[in-house]
């Protein structure tokens, strides 16, 4: 029996498991291959939903579906946390402490974790919308926020989703205008480098929109610490900024599993950017946010990577030489307010072009979010 183990039932892991179940249908039915998905959370969580929670447009429950409903019946599903990866022995240990699983091919798809504690004062002083609890707390805070200085600060590098930090101030601007509160709120957006975004075309696009909508832009802004009592941010560059409501993109960390297994630093798996094979061990792949590749930590990336790895793994399971490779394809929708959006598309080394925002593209983003449940099932 050829055993394929996938750790993590998020976007990448779920799409991969379903794709393998279809590519290796015959082999699975004949008992020659097993595709096992091991995931800690009985629910699959679609994180892009959280962006809409602070504005009351979606709830945290909208982001969840039981993973059982999303995976093909040919996939062996194990709900448990993987606590240890031994790449020398090709084995995984689970949190139940009794199970140890052997694999022939392993895929790590454990995503990214939030680590606000990494910056002093940030956990106490800042809100965020990158997880369920944070998004709900921010919704309650925003509901009562009628005047003052709202700061959106990109603190974590790297972080999930290239778009969300730029989208939030544009959405909050529109949301406050609709409620007649915008005149009493100053909005500032801060970014670590000398422009508004890592991608130059997105930076140019956002800078123009920010100016048009009276959103102040602060660049070369790397948060060193936050004083939650005084409500002041101190930067590495030696500047200070006072706030009344701070919304941060918190620091992110990969998985301790990865560091402990010697597969990469800061919990991100060091991989070949085209084959997605781990550089430090045989028979190990990484996809999605946990893979250290020079593009965005985005759902679209996890999805395309899953397609490539499914092909490579299926080839190997059949004794063929894998040839599929990942070219860095990334697609991202960007909300430009509450009812307009645009999107960008690029591969490694490419600079995207940002189209004029439009209402149909906003509806397309919402439509994609709705049909995501079909995407995860491998039906789209």
């Amino acid at each position, binding site marked *: 029996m050829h055993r394929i183990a996938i750790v993590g039932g998020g976007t990448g892991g779920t799409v991969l498991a379903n794709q393998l179940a279809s590519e290796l249908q015959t082999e699975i039915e004949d008992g020659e291959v097993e595709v096992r998905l091991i995931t800690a959370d009985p629910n699959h969580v679609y994180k892009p939903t959280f962006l809409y929670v602070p504005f009351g447009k979606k709830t945290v429950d909208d982001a969840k579906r039981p993973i059982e409903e999303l995976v093909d019946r040919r996939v062996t599903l194990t709900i448990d946390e993987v606590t240890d990866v031994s790449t020398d022995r090709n084995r995984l240990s689970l949190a139940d402490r009794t199970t140890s699983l052997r694999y022939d091919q392993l895929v790590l798809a454990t995503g990214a974790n939030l680590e606000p504690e990494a910056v002093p004062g940030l956990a106490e002083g800042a809100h965020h919308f990158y997880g369920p609890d944070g998004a709900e707390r921010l919704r309650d805070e925003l509901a009562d926020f009628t005047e003052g200085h709202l700061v959106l600060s990109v603190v974590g*590098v*790297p972080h999930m989703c*290239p778009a969300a930090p730029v989208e939030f101030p544009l959405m909050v601007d529109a949301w406050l205008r609709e409620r007649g509160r915008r005149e009493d709120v100053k909005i500032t957006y801060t970014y*670590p*480098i*000398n422009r508004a*975004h*890592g*991608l*130059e075309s997105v930076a140019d696009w956002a800078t123009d929109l920010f100016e048009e909508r009276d959103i102040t832009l602060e660049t*070369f802004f*790397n948060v060193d610490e936050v004083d939650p009592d005084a409500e002041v941010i101190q930067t*590495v*560059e030696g500047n200070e900024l006072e706030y009344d409501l701070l919304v941060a993109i918190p620091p992110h960390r990969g998985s301790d599993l990865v560091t402990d297994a010697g597969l990469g*630093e*800061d919990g991100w798996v060091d991989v070949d950017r085209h084959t997605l094979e781990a550089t430090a061990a045989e028979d190990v792949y990484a996809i999605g946010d946990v893979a250290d590749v*020079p*593009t*965005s930590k985005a759902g679209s990336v996890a999805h395309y990577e899953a397609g490539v790895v499914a092909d490579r793994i299926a080839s190997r399971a059949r004794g063929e030489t894998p040839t599929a490779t990942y070219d*860095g394809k*990334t697609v991202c929708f960007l909300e430009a307010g509450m009812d307009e959006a645009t999107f960008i598309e*690029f*591969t*490694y*080394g*490419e*600079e*995207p072009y940002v189209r004029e925002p439009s209402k149909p593209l906003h509806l397309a983003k919402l439509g994609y979010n709705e049909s995501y449940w079909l995407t995860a099932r491998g039906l789209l």
Partner: protein
Amino acid sequence: MTDAHNSDVTIDSRDASCPGPLMDLIGKVKNLDSGTVVKLQTTERNSTMDVPEWLEEAGHDLVEIEERDDYRSIYLEVN
């Protein structure tokens, strides 16, 4: 070809699209000790301007920029 300098850490940002070499650098530098020499490999033209500019702002030292055929290596020392 041998390197002009010894580096403790190499960051390969060649053909990096998003969020780009400078963001890759900032993400890694935070966790490095003072005195660490970093080699940042980049194919992005702007890097030779915006990396030195940020190093100056953040108080790290630019050691050298080495031009290769199809990329450049920026050496810096973390303070």
